[in-house]
């Protein structure tokens, strides 16, 4: 049975806890950056994020993996956009044209810096799954166990497998994401823009 789908634009109640995926965070950011003309999915994510992070509304959280994933997108975009077509990949770009690579990297820094500040301040908790005896390393092994199991069942990107594993280990069933791949996953509730 696939995931239960909830339209984040038509919510009457919020889940008790929700794990927020990277795309919801950056779409909300784009809504804020666009001023008065956000795209409909951007607006939906911004309103959802505002509602979920309002004081006492629900336990809205994400992991450092989301921060890394979300911040890598604009940095990678800038490096790829500035890479000459004849250069096959970013490593070759850095090796063959270090000056141009450094300039591209420098150009992305302020973009990523501001976005990271948004993530830090937007009210989302950034944490790992709440587990007993967190220093024991058992939680990390459990995350790998769950992610490996999901890998055999679904065709999701690696980071998505880990997002789901974090949420499940925490006991959080609701995941806010725009990624359609999550909809196939049994045992979760997906808050999205269908």
């Amino acid at each position, binding site marked *: 049975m696939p995931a239960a789908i909830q339209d984040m634009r038509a919510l009457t109640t919020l889940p008790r806890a929700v794990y927020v995926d990277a795309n919801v965070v950056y779409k909300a950011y784009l809504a804020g950056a666009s001023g008065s003309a956000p795209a409909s999915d951007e607006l939906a994510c911004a309103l959802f994020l505002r509602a979920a992070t309002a004081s006492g509304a629900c336990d809205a959280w994400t992991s450092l993996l989301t921060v890394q994933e979300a911040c890598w997108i604009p940095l990678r*975009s800038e490096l790829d956009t500035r890479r000459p077509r004849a250069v096959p990949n970013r490593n070759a770009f850095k090796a063959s044209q270090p000056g141009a690579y450094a300039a591209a990297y420098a150009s992305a820094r*302020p973009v990523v810096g*501001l976005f990271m*500040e948004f993530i830090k301040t937007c009210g989302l908790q950034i944490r790992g799954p709440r587990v007993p005896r967190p220093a024991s390393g058992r939680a990390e092994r459990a995350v790998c166990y769950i992610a490996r199991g999901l890998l055999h069942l679904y065709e999701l990107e690696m980071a998505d497998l880990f997002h789901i594993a974090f949420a499940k280990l925490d006991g959080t069933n609701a995941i806010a994401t725009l990624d359609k791949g999550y909809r196939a996953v049994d045992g979760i509730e997906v808050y999205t823009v269908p």
Partner: protein
Amino acid sequence: MSATRVQDELLTRMERLEEENAVLRSSISDLSRRLAQVEADRGAELEDYERREAALYEFAKTLPEPPDYGTDDPWEIARLAGERFGIGRLRALFSEE
């Protein structure tokens, strides 16, 4: 009850109390040893934590100061990003295609 019998009973009770006392003394001694070990472990852990914290502080001093955006309101930060970089560029950068 004869005086001898009372004396015998008291002696038996005293012996039992002395045995219990010895067991208790041994438990206390064992607990004291374990407490000392826990305190030693905690002390070592704290010392290790303080050493790592000092190293982290030294490392942090080598990093540039974060910029002051003049606000900690996330939506103001987003608005600032739109103003500074343009929403067209931001949308292109955040495109995962």
